[in-house]
């Protein structure tokens, strides 16, 4: 048998062709389509595709495609704060009072005990455009600086920040969004480490 016809020659050939086709297809979907797509409800593995709701409910691509994209494209890929700030959405503040406004608190809290990670800066402002004080205080966080024994284990278990982050707010894989303040005399900085 000719060596060139052996499986070792044909396998890479098939592979290469497959690659080209895959690449072309995905490139078409991503760039030529120009748009970012969301999985339709019928295929999200939660909604019953045979249920009558599929035809009635708003598709995520219809609801979310006008909103600004999340910079690291996590969660449902929407930058919710930006959407609110630039006015793409203007969600109701109250269903009972017409002219109510959010009580926005501009107060940053530093969590310095983060071992070798950069320190955590908690911005009240970003949270109070959505939430009331009593949503977190005192049921989730005590109103005392340093009074909350927060650690990543608890957060991953759904306590403290993990009550929302990872469930409805950006996920816990986005370490540096919270751990955002580098220590001055840090021996390890995460940007330099590769």
């Amino acid at each position, binding site marked *: 048998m000719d*060596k*060139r016809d*052996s499986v*070792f*020659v044909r396998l*890479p050939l098939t*592979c*290469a062709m*497959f*690659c080209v086709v*895959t*690449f072309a*297809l*995905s490139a078409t*979907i*991503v760039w030529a389509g120009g748009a*970012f*797509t*969301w*999985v339709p409800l019928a295929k*999200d593995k*939660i*909604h*019953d595709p045979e*249920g*009558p*709701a*599929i035809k*009635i*409910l*708003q598709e995520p691509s219809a*609801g*979310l495609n006008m*909103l600004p994209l999340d910079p690291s*494209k996590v*969660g*449902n890929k*929407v930058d919710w704060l930006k959407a609110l700030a630039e006015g793409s959405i203007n*969600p*109701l*503040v*109250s*269903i*009972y009072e017409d002219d109510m406004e*959010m009580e926005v608190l501009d107060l940053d809290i530093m969590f310095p005990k983060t071992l070798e990670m950069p320190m955590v800066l908690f911005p009240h402002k970003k949270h109070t455009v959505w*939430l*009331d004080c009593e*949503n977190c205080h005192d049921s*989730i966080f005590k109103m005392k600086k340093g009074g909350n024994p927060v650690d990543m284990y608890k957060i*991953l*278990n*759904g306590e403290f920040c*993990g009550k*929302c982050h*990872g*469930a*409805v707010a950006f*996920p*816990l*894989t986005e370490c540096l969004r919270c751990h955002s303040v580098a220590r001055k005399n840090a021996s390890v900085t995460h940007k330099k480490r590769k």
Partner: protein
Amino acid sequence: MCDPVVVKKRLPNPCNKVFSVFLFFALVLPVFIASPAYSEHGDIIINNYSDREGMRPVIFSHWFHRIRFRCRVCHTEVGFIMEAGGNKITMDKIIKGEYCGACHNGDIAWGVQNCDVCHSAIRGTKTGVRGSHRTKGPGKW
């Protein structure tokens, strides 16, 4: 497989670094780039009683409601606690105007007669949050 004599004449050698890089960009990378986004992040499945009562479980999608209402509306004014399945919601309470019934009363949003619009999950789906580490990574699950 990587004997260059065999492969040389017809095809690039798969052991060639350039070709491996090509393989990576062509085969591996598109899988990450092209996968469409799930909007599920924050979808809550509520199946406290539904399956038992012969209804599909309820899906509450945060993204849909978040476009229209701030968090405080439901979590302060209506009084939903922030735990999947933690609010023992029954149709009885909803009809009395508690929980979902605060809006889903035919006034602010459509009323309770549209059973199947909320009860829309695949039967047997368990109560919980869908998305992120809660279903895809470390953490609670």
